[in-house]
């Protein structure tokens, strides 16, 4: 009796979502297309919707690979800083999260209180004294100045603690009976079990470090020490004649992350929705 009726609501919802998705992707697609267009036009006209397909070329990429100049220093700086930040902050915070979750010791609540304290205090308040500290330590314009404050990662401690609470305590006792040291238990047995949480936090810390702006802007001084966001920002002037590096370099700044995202979606989602870490 009932014929297949045309239902408008699902159609509207799907089309609306398609448009929202396109809006979300629009700037990224625009960036990709613009990187294949003459940079002189980009500087004169900005990013236009219309363009002449015959002008498409890989000129900007050829230029950046042959005469990229400091761009490659920025890239390497970002890569080194991000890698060291991930390793150090994960190492420190996984140990704390683990200890807070699985050991009973005096002062545990105090340490947990410290973690909550850092979560509440925004970094911008610590910035000026930290800047002073870096001047006194003679660390201005070094990797260490950028990395050291990022080693205290309260969000990661929180996450690891939450994760470690769910680990089987019996494994620890079994390993003790087998004569394993407490450190052996952590590094050989428990830490491997925490791999999913390590992956998620590596992404949170890594993305934060790769895109970090304000703090490196303050402590890095010379052009060849800049990280990618800071270096690229220096090219963004109305009189800039480096728009080829700016546009192709921007693509190469976000493309590695997008590729990683395609392969590790689950961990990206887990890492970025841990919360509190914005901007």
């Amino acid at each position: 009796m009932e014929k297949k009726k045309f239902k408008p609501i699902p159609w509207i919802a799907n089309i609306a979502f398609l448009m929202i998705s396109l809006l979300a992707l629009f700037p990224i697609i625009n960036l990709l297309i613009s990187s294949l267009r003459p940079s002189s036009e980009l500087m004169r006209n900005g990013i236009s919707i219309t363009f002449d397909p015959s002008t498409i070329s890989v000129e900007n990429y050829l230029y950046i690979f042959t005469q990229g100049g400091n761009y490659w220093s920025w890239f390497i700086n970002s890569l080194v800083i991000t890698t060291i930040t991930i390793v150090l902050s994960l190492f420190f915070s996984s140990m704390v999260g683990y200890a807070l979750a699985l050991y009973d010791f005096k002062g545990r609540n105090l340490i947990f209180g410290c973690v909550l304290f850092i979560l509440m205090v925004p970094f911008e308040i610590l910035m000026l004294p930290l800047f002073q500290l870096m001047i006194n330590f003679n660390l201005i314009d070094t990797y260490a100045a950028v990395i050291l404050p990022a080693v205290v990662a309260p969000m990661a401690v929180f996450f690891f603690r939450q994760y470690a609470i769910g680990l089987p305590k019996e494994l620890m006792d079994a390993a003790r009976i087998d004569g394993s040291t407490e450190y052996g238990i952590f590094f050989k047995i428990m830490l491997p079990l925490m791999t999913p949480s390590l992956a998620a936090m590596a992404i949170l810390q890594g993305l934060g470090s790769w895109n970090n702006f304000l703090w490196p802007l303050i402590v890095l001084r010379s052009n060849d020490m800049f990280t990618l966001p800071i270096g690229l920002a220096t090219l963004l002037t109305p009189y800039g004649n480096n728009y080829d590096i700016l546009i192709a370099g921007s693509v190469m700044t976000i493309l590695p992350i997008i590729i990683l995202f395609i392969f590790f979606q689950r961990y990206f989602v887990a890492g970025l929705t841990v919360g509190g870490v914005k901007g």
Partner: protein
Amino acid sequence: MLPVSKMTSQELAQVKKPNKLLVFLNSKKVVPYIFVLPFILSFLVFSLYPSVQAMIMSFQKVLPGQVTFIGMNNYSRVFNPIFYKALSNTAIYVVLTVVILTIVPIILAVLLDSKLVKFKTFFRASLFLPSLASTIVAGMVFRLMFGETDTAAANQILNWLGFESMDWRYQAWSAMFLMVLLCCWKWMGVNVLYFLAGLQNVPKELYEAAEIDGATTFQKFTNVTLPFLKPVTIFVATISVIGGFRMFEESFVYWEAGSPGNIGLTVVGYLYQQGIQQNDMGFGAAIGVILMLIIFVVSFIQLMLTGAFKKEGQ
């Protein structure tokens, strides 16, 4: 404190058994302290010390090699027209971003959770993708799309619709629009994911029960879905408020050091300008302390609303 700590390192060295120190280090009483030690040290140097120092500095005039205590002087100077401008810009930005970044994601998440929408994975991924981009890179793209020329994307669209081209970055309302747009574009997908996670907590039986009672779709949304989303909503609103007050990059990428008539100046931007660029650290610290107070109040309200701070760790 601990019984073992009575042993000094000297005594330990005198002990014949060479593995005594190792036994000590491996005892269940000592191990957790060793695990937390690196974190505690870095916490003391890079978190606790600077936060105390920030308070002290806000009462000082800090010049190279010369620090003088000047009482409330920095604070009385803070409350000037430029700071009020920065504060009102930031407040408007916070209100707009919080409203948009809470209401829109709820609607999107509910739709994505329903059977109405197909290709959920694609929609979720494309909404999430902007959060990976650096604000600087994304802002550069926005800046070039919202350029002053007739050939920039935004003005092309305006012209097609029959409007005049605009100087997007040089008018107060459009400056605010650009900053809010950049922020909302970047964080929309993440907030949708928060709400999607929250929706998994709504018991399906409740919808069935509501259907039996003859509730409309809208009634189900307001009476069943929304109450269950309350904790997530408070959480998302809180992180949006805090993120909004800490905003800097969205403004920097459009105008670098200074916007015309300070239409893009934010509290953190003012802190950077005074504390770093003008090297007036005491004054900058005072701005920071005020910012911290604002954020404490917001966090406190969240505590009151959720009843437990634990929510933050979920």
